[in-house]
């Protein structure tokens, strides 16, 4: 890979020639505002907030899509660029509900944050706002298209990362919107990757509504219990109740989760959930018991069967919800403890 030398804000930098101007800037600690750029996705170039000035070019260019070239002189912050960014934000907010008071995304909204940074209220260019009254009836993902800024991140992550292509840009111009085929209710895997990359409140979890945003919310880093993949998750809880699951983009799973990990948490407080072992008695009824008693009960039966019928009368089936380590221990128990090779796993179809 060849290296090129460019200057950003007067500072000379030597960077690989396959970077964009924004990537080069970011690597050297220079942030450039943007809404449509996402490191996991191919650049889009639609929001126009990341414009920078390049010496010799007549108009500002989008730093997210422009590759670095030898000798390029870039300026990321000038009064004129700031004016441009304010202009774009004014336009976006002129077509936005601006109901941050009740918006789920408040506090974690990139648009809100930029508006705050630039002191833009969206009052300069009043005009028609898109109104979409139809509510998507899917069970997991709230799609509030009036808050959508058409950054395309959801379309891209659905296509480039998840490979599902459940949504795409539809229509054009002011009427452009992100849509499912024939504008049906969303019918996909509901992995919620789209929700995780949405920079506004256009995509949120239906389960989250009214449960809490920031105030009084405690975040706990943990591992998803659903399967052996072991995705890192952040559990958001308020008043000792899980109100949302998310995942940090810098986690090893890069913030990606599946429908179970992201939206499958209500089981935690389900009244049907087993929290103590049960033993079925002769009467046929289940009886609550302690873990010690339950394990003793099982080991007694295993021993009895092995003595009477031999170890191969016993087999073990493990679960994909267990980690590799747990599965290892399980086969060890069967092979070394019980003495049989009858061991298998539900994911081995």
């Amino acid at each position, binding site marked *: 890979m060849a290296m090129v030398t460019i200057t950003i804000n007067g500072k000379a930098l030597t960077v690989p020639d396959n970077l964009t101007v924004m990537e080069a800037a970011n690597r050297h600690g220079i942030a450039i505002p943007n809404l449509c750029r996402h490191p996991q996705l191919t650049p889009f170039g639609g929001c126009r907030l990341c414009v920078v000035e390049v010496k010799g070019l007549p108009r500002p260019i989008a730093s997210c899509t422009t590759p670095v070239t030898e000798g390029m002189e870039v300026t990321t912050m000038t009064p004129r660029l700031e004016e441009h960014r304010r202009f774009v934000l004014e336009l976006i907010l002129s077509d936005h509900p601006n109901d941050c008071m009740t918006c789920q995304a408040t506090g974690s909204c990139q648009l809100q944050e930029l508006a705050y940074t630039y002191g833009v209220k969206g009052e300069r260019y009043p005009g028609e706002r898109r109104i979409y009254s139809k509510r998507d009836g899917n069970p997991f993902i709230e799609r509030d298209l009036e808050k959508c800024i058409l950054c395309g991140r959801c379309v891209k992550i659905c296509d480039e990362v998840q490979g599902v292509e*459940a949504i*795409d840009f*539809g229509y054009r111009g002011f009427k452009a919107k992100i*849509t499912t*085929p024939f504008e049906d209710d969303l019918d996909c895997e509901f992995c919620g990757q789209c929700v995780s990359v949405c920079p506004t409140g256009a995509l949120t979890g239906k389960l989250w509504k009214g449960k809490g945003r920031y105030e009084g919310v405690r975040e706990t880093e943990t591992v998803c219990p659903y399967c052996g993949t072991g995705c890192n998750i952040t559990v958001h809880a308020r008043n000792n109740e899980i109100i949302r699951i998310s995942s940090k983009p810098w986690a090893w799973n890069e913030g990606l989760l599946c429908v179970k990990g992201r939206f499958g948490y209500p089981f935690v407080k389900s009244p049907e959930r087993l929290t103590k072992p049960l033993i079925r008695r002769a009467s046929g009824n289940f009886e609550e018991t302690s873990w010690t008693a339950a394990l003793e009960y099982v080991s007694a039966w295993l021993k009895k069967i092995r003595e009477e019928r031999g170890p191969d009368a016993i087999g073990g089936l493990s679960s994909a919800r267990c980690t590799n380590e747990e599965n290892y221990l399980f086969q060890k128990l069967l092979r070394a403890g019980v003495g049989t090779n009858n061991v298998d796993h539900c994911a081995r179809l």
Partner: protein
Amino acid sequence: MESRLRELIERHRETGGNIISLLQDTQEAFGYIPRDAVMLFSRELGIAASRFYGVATFYAQFRLKPVGRHKVTACCGTACHVRGADRIISGIQRELHLAGEQDTTDDGLITLDKVACLGFCSFAPVVLVDGAVHGKATTDIAIREIKNLRKKI
């Protein structure tokens, strides 16, 4: 319908399934793009239905609803505009009782198509009734032609 769609699929399978060409052929065959066609293409060619819908709603040529059997085409090009195409179009809309964005009459017989420049600029404004060109049109001419069309239906 199914067999015609299968034909289209086979024709396009070799070329890698160009969405626009496929939709153009579909519209040519049915006058519009039926939902079932998109769903079948998607299943058979392994191209997401969302892509078809995105393309179909992007281009002005594509229609997702059946069109009227008869078509009144009004040119909205610049030359027609400065010679009063607007007035003619509102006259046609009044005559056909079309409200707002509605483009097909309630009985589904006549569709008013507003198109970009047709290249008859020297004869502006131009109105086509079922393909027959009426140059230097006026509201009266347009309405007369629609009345004639109605008589024939």
